[in-house]
């Protein structure tokens, strides 16, 4: 395995403090495992703020993770061993493997060796090229600074690289401002492959380019991949680009990978509800299917929704996806005050209590039950209501206990959705009180 990450987590501290004086943390990447084989293009797709770029930087060691490991060039059996050790809680043996293969434990020459074998191409060619250096200097910089070649050989290498990315050789003496966007991105790409890396991170390599130029750059990337057998992580929000380029696809949502597998599965027959909506929303498809228009926006990463972080927008979410009493109460309140205003008295009050239950005052049970029955399909949060009881407080609605989904195997892919959880006793929903 060229690159393998295990439980990679990156939290960025924010100003101010949250409840109990805990520092506020922006959970940009939250427990990500991805793997890249040699010569394989692995796509990472997601909306802005889903942590794609942070992941790309973590994988190269440009950012230090809060926890988790990135292994570089680790034999498959060693990786398997490591996973077994972690599963069996044999942390000492796991630490030995971490020491040898983790990029965060490399220093000095061995770190330089990794730098030589990895590289990154950034999104914006306008800001990633130093305006005061000419193209020759830009391309030779990584060659000489990693000690890949001596400077006189580096110039020769630079001309070869220019040929390879399809730029005329006299461009070597031009400055970035003299180049167009597509040409700049080619220079950035030439710099990226200057030291013949084994692994390349492409962070939105074409989103600053026009469609006509994008097509050329993508074709170039494919050519480079086949000629040098470079493993790549392609980070983009453009699903069509991923579908054109990648072998394996990871879909990210709110710092987590929610669906991963071969391209033909994940893109052409998505199953994770977010991914289904995402693919259906891609404009300009040949076959126009029904579009699933999601409600709402990407979640706040400082306090991501509990349980499955997609549940508030999910069109098929159900009882154990992570509904909290506050969410259920606000939905109920909205329904009671607007759509079903004629069924309820104006004094009806919806609130939550200390047990984490929803309490409705000044209403009778049959009204509530009929409302729940009518709205069950449309308002997903109501699915979280397990049972109801009457007390002197009013009508008390008991909620199901929510849990966080893990990655479940589903044929060739991994999906983080309860709908695809193996059917055993462990993962079936539990009412709130049987847990404590």
């Amino acid at each position, binding site marked *: 395995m060229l690159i393998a990450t295990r439980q990679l987590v990156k939290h960025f501290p924010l100003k101010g403090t949250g409840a109990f004086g805990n520092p506020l943390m922006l959970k940009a990447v939250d427990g990500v495992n991805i793997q890249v084989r040699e010569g394989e293009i692995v796509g990472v797709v997601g909306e802005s703020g889903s942590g794609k770029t942070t992941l790309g930087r973590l994988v190269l060691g440009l950012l230090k993770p809060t926890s988790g490991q990135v292994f570089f060039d680790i034999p498959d059996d060693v990786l398997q061993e490591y996973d077994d050790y972690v599963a069996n809680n044999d942390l000492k043996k796991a630490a030995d493997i971490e020491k040898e293969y983790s990029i965060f434990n490399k220093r000095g020459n061995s770190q330089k060796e990794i730098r030589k074998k990895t590289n990154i191409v950034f999104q914006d060619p306008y800001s990633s090229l130093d305006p005061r250096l000419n193209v020759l200097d830009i391309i030779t910089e990584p060659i000489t600074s990693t000690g890949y070649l001596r400077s006189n050989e580096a110039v020769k290498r630079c001309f070869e690289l220019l040929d390879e990315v399809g730029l005329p050789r006299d461009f070597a003496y031009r400055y970035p401002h003299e180049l167009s966007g597509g040409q700049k991105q080619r220079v950035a790409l030439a710099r990226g492959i200057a030291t013949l890396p084994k692994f390349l991170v492409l962070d939105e390599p074409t989103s600053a380019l026009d469609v*006509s130029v994008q097509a050329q750059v993508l074709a170039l990337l494919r050519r480079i991949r086949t000629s040098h057998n470079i493993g790549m992580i392609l980070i983009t929000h453009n699903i069509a680009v991923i579908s*054109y380029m990648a072998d394996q696809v990871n879909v990210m949502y709110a710092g987590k990978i929610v669906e991963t597998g071969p391209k033909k599965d994940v893109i052409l027959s998505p199953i994770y509800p977010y991914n289904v909506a995402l693919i259906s929303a891609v404009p*300009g498809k*040949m076959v126009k299917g029904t579009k699933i*228009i999601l*409600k709402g926006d990407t979640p706040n990463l400082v306090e991501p929704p509990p349980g499955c972080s997609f549940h508030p927008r999910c069109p098929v979410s159900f009882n154990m996806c992570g509904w909290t009493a506050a969410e259920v109460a606000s939905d109920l309140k909205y329904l009671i005050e607007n*759509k079903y*205003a*004629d069924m309820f008295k104006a004094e009806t009050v919806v609130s939550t209590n200390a047990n984490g239950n929803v309490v409705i005052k000044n209403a009778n049970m049959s009204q509530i039950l009929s409302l729940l029955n009518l709205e069950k399909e449309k308002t997903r949060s109501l699915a979280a209501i397990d049972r109801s009881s009457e007390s002197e407080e009013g009508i008390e609605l008991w909620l199901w206990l929510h849990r966080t989904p893990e990655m479940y195997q589903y044929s060739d892919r991994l999906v983080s959705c309860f709908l695809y959880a193996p059917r055993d006793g462990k993962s079936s929903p539990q009412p709130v009180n049987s847990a404590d």
Partner: protein
Amino acid sequence: MDYTLKVSDLKVQFYTRRGIYKALNGVDLSLMQGEIFGVAGESGCGKTTMGLTIIGLLPVNAAVTEGKVIFLDERDLIAPLRKGNTEETDKFNLRQREAVTKQVNKELADVRGSRISMVFQDPMTSLNPVLQVGFQIAETVITHQPRSLAERKLARSRATQDDTQAIVELLKEGADEQAISRYAESKGLRGIETQVLNVWRRNDLGETKKEKIILSLHSEKLGSFERIVLESVEKGKGKPGWMKIPGISRAARGVLLREGYTKAVELLSMLEVPNPDKVVRMYPHELSGGMRQRIVIAIALANNPDLVILDEPTSALDVTVQAQILELTRHLKHRFNTSFIFISHDLSVLSEVCDRIGIMYAGRIVEIAPTDVIFNNPIHPYTQMLMKAIPRIEGYEIQGVGGTVPDMRNVPRGCAFNPRCPDATEECRIKKPEMVEVEEGHFVAC
């Protein structure tokens, strides 16, 4: 079919230190009423310049050298901009241009924002960060149509219980827009019909709740000052003299502003913004990107314009949010009889919403056709190559368009695409191709 806008042979150039950029080289375009027209092209092909020219927002160093923009009532919007320019003018006189800009601003004051409005790419830069969004929506209405606000409120105070009862009866019988407004007109209640219909069309409320709201739209109590202000705004064209006295003018504005907020809530609920009555009191930074873009669209639609220019409205948004906004645009088209010009570099976005699409290259529209025709049967070689360059989910080989966008300082002679065109002939290098109609509604310049 009625035309909303006719652009003919529009030529615009920019004077810069590095020479004269010919941004538009003869754009021809006619826009039907209630249609979404898409404009696509590479960056630098003049898409945005075209939008800005129509609404007269060109910077001082730009000059319209030729062409007309005829809007609805035979009015040429850019007449003052054309003044004193020919293609040969190689220097620009800053003083003169500034005067022209001022004159344009003055002449177009009654068109911009009320009859033609524009939505820009980045909602954060087009909203004022220190004002509540409700205020910003209300402001556009107060500036352009204060009368409509006064009418709305006065109608509510004049209506009797019987009137609202009658309107609800009408609605229940399935009366259309015209019937309601006829009724309102006959009772002297102009301004109530939009309020009623906006409530009636909401999906998030139950029937009875809607009825309740509509039934409550009567006998609103007005303060004596409020009444004086509203009645004088309703009658007069401009502000009466007493309303310009500092303290009073502020208070009078406050009266209109309150009604403006109510209108803002209505607009936002129409744009499917959750909790509109809370959102109007928020500031732009509290809202997400998609929500901000809805606010900008609400501002654009606040005065029921005849034409809305959308300049890359979804390029800064995520795919799922983009889908929401596109859905909304389609929905709005059916709702109002408004024409849209939808500018985007992304053809696949255009294919989702547009009725017709125009492909721009080097400051000219080279092909115009209905959406499905342009995708299935593109004729211009540039369009054909562009179609091949779009990566799609279905995954087939894509091909870039060779060469680069031409330098707009000296656009190639003849057909501007000839240096990149695989089938260019000698003729293409000399003669500028005319727009020809190859089949009904399908024009091409090749």
